[in-house]
């Protein structure tokens, strides 16, 4: 340990100044912008600034085991869908780090995840506009082979400020690395445990009883245990987390302890894979500031077990994880029919079947704010939140043509987005044809249809309702340019005609894209974490490069 700290100090010593010069600098830059003007049909508004722009530049300096970095961010003003609290510019992230195989320490901003994130996940997603980096100190230490210990202490990023106080420790034991006689065993077993706590000072939160306030816990802890077992093609992963009393805005200030269980079992062999996942989440929302109700300041994360769809109509209703309470089950099956078989044909056929179902919990209300809130049955289920089934068949028709055909069914309960309205039942058909004309020219066609029992009404104003068709043509030429045209049209019981055209150019690590069209109001989710996207109508551009 002493040696590690001695080495940590060397980049700053005068005698080793040339060592700093001997390092190297890497980075990347991203600049996105948009213009939008009023469109009453889709609900787009004029943008007072005319041009909105998000920009960021990451600079990383590395010299041996030492690294340091910073990130410039500028939101002048923030693009539509990004919180106005981002407005401004400056150095949003900076750190210094020293890392060896057995020891690492980072001071400044850093990201970390314990296990599946059920007690701690400090991460960022620039697409969602979420960054809950910890600003403080993080340490990793491997006292000997097979054991990894981590510790973190810091405050969470909150737009341009930091909030809360988070402390956490994590330990992981790889028994195959720890026990020498197990090192060559086919069965691999890793065990882990984590504990995270937050501190927040007292404040006055009145109860529903006049003249009485809540007694608030200043320190709230969450702990988890996990297992990762693999043997041959079989795999089993599980994590169970529990959280102490944590009254907050998110759970209407109730005191019921939280818990979450996630289990994943899988089997794979050449040409086949199967996976089944289940989870139960009960009052497991864990934020560093109890009064924060937005998407920021989450300390933990519960893994999403719905498929991250990529096609437009299947992803029109993404599922937002309900960390206050949900149960879910997902099955995923992939099979490749071999070449020169009846179903495989000349090139083989890939089949991908996925299904998931998410419900609420079976709860009994025992009180409101300032009480335990409710009790829940561990195996009982409540109302259905979300369900989907998708069957995707991908087949190479010839050496130049590849067709992917997909059928999907989506059941969506608007209550998960805190909206009123009936459950939507949608059927989706997709045909995706790729024609590789030659080595440098590729043409792709995509046609989608969605039939829904939902109907647009001005009262609910959900612009995703109705029956839709979509067409897309995408042409990649000379390996550098691409041109894309698409249109989504609500032909029955819906509103909106969303056309888009975009052109892009890529040279080396630099990519420029310019688009024009309409964006439907909706919600985008990545891994169950979501943000709202308002409607827009106008020009967009994006420039990315790295060095």
């Amino acid at each position, binding site marked *: 340990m002493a040696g590690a700290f001695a080495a940590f100090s060397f980049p700053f010593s005068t005698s080793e100044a040339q060592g700093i010069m001997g390092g190297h600098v890497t980075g990347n830059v991203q600049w996105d912008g948009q213009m939008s003007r009023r469109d009453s049909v889709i609900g787009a508004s004029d943008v007072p600034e005319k041009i909105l722009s998000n920009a960021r530049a990451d600079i990383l300096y590395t010299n041996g085991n030492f690294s340091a970095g910073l990130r410039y961010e500028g939101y002048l003003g923030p693009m539509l869908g990004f919180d106005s609290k981002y407005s401004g510019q400056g150095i949003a992230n900076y750190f210094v780090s020293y890392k060896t195989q057995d020891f690492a320490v980072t001071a400044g901003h850093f990201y970390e995840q314990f296990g599946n994130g059920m007690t701690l996940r400090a991460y960022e997603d620039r697409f969602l506009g979420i960054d809950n980096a910890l600003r403080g100190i993080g340490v990793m230490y491997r*006292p*000997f082979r097979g*054991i990894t*210990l981590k510790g973190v202490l810091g405050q969470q990023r909150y737009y341009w*400020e*930091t909030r809360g106080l988070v*402390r956490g*420790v994590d*330990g992981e034991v790889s028994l195959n690395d720890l026990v020498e006689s197990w090192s060559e065993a086919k069965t691999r077993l890793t065990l882990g*445990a984590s*504990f995270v*706590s937050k501190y927040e*000072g*007292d*404040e*006055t939160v*009145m*109860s529903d*009883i*006049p*003249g*009485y*306030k*809540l*007694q*608030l*816990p*200043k*320190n*709230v*802890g969450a*702990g988890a245990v996990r297992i990762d077992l693999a043997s041959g093609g079989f795999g089993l992963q599980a994590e169970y987390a529990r959280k*102490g*009393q944590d*009254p907050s805005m998110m759970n209407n200030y109730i*005191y019921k302890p939280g818990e979450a269980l996630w289990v994943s079992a899988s089997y794979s062999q050449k040409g086949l894979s199967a996976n089944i996942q289940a989870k139960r989440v009960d009052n497991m929302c864990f934020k560093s500031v109890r009064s924060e109700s937005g998407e920021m300041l989450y300390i933990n994360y519960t893994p999403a077990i719905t498929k991250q769809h990529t096609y437009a109509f299947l992803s029109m209703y993404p599922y937002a994880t309900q960390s206050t309470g949900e149960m879910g089950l997902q099955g995923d099956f992939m099979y490749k029919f071999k070449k020169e078989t009846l179903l495989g044909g000349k090139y083989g056929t890939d089949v991908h079947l996925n299904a998931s179902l998410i419900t609420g919990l079976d709860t009994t209300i*025992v*009180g409101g704010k*300032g*009480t*335990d809130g409710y009790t829940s049955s561990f195996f009982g289920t409540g109302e259905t939140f979300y369900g989907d089934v998708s069957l995707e068949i991908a087949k190479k028709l010839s050496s130049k043509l590849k067709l992917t055909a997909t059928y999907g069914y989506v059941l969506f309960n608007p209550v998960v987005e805190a909206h009123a309205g009936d459950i939507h039942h949608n059927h989706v058909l997709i045909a995706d044809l790729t024609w590789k004309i030659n080595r440098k020219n590729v043409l792709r066609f995509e046609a989608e249809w969605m039939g829904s029992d939902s109907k647009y009404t001005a009262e609910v104003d959900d612009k995703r309702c109705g029956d839709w068709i979509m067409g897309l043509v995408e042409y990649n030429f000379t390996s550098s340019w691409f041109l894309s045209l698409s249109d989504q049209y609500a032909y029955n019981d819906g509103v909106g005609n969303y056309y888009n055209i975009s052109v892009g150019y890529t040279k080396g690590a630099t990519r420029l894209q310019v688009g024009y069209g309409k964006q439907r109001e909706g919600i985008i989710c990545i891994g169950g974490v979501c943000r709202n996207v308002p409607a827009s109508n106008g020009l967009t551009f994006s420039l990315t490069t790295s060095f």
Partner: protein
Amino acid sequence: MKRFFISLSIIFFATAALVSCDKIEQQSDGTYTVYAGAVGEWNAGQGVADKSQRALLEKFTGVRCNNCPTADEQIATTLDNYAGKLIAISIHDSISSFCNPYPNSLDLRTAVGTSWSEGFGRTTSSPSPAALVNRMKKDGSYDIFYSFSSLSTYIDPIISQDAKVAIGVAAARNNGSLDVTVDLEFLESLSDKLTVTLAVIEDGLIATQLLPDGHTRDTAYVHNHILRGVVTDVWGADVDCTGAAGEKRVALFSTSNVNPEWNLDNCHIVAFVSKKENREVLNVAECEIE
């Protein structure tokens, strides 16, 4: 060696788990609540005659703090100089060992004083005397200072400004209860959520105090501006208002929670209106108890 590391790790985890979790005990009625002090019912008011901007000085002191009597003198002089524009509160808490009472002497510590000190980031190692004006922050932390020789640098910038909200207060005994009436008048539009805090302050308390020579204990030391309790909740009661310029609000706070140790003849009420989010004091007033 391996066993040592494993044992160390287990101890580390167990310690972290034990010390990092608070458990709130459930009340017999199934709630986790506690009396929050008088809440007050807000109604349309008549306005406030005195629209002065005043400053609140909170002093963190202690009977075992030998420099505190000097600070008391400096504050007394400053209060005279600012004649009604500055209001002082002396806080004795259970955090600082400077506040531990001497044997056979009055204990000036209060639960509310402890909550405030803790809320302002004071720890067992924080120096005394210290002070905070209007609960202002600097670089994200409460701007607590330790030198009392230039108090005007903290007070002048506040009282030289026009008040955004005027506050008036009146208090009266009522058959063992205490009735406090607070008037607010918004002189500018305010979008912040606001709270009003009513503190009971007592003068003329006798308690043993360590003197500046560091060893003499004055058993007849007279303590003034001593925080004795609050009529409202520790961090105040919510103000029901729109915050529009010109709005006038009034509320009556009535409490039977009057500590018999308080000598109400020597007590007065300090009322201050604060921003709920960061606790910054916008204005303050005081009154005798009729």
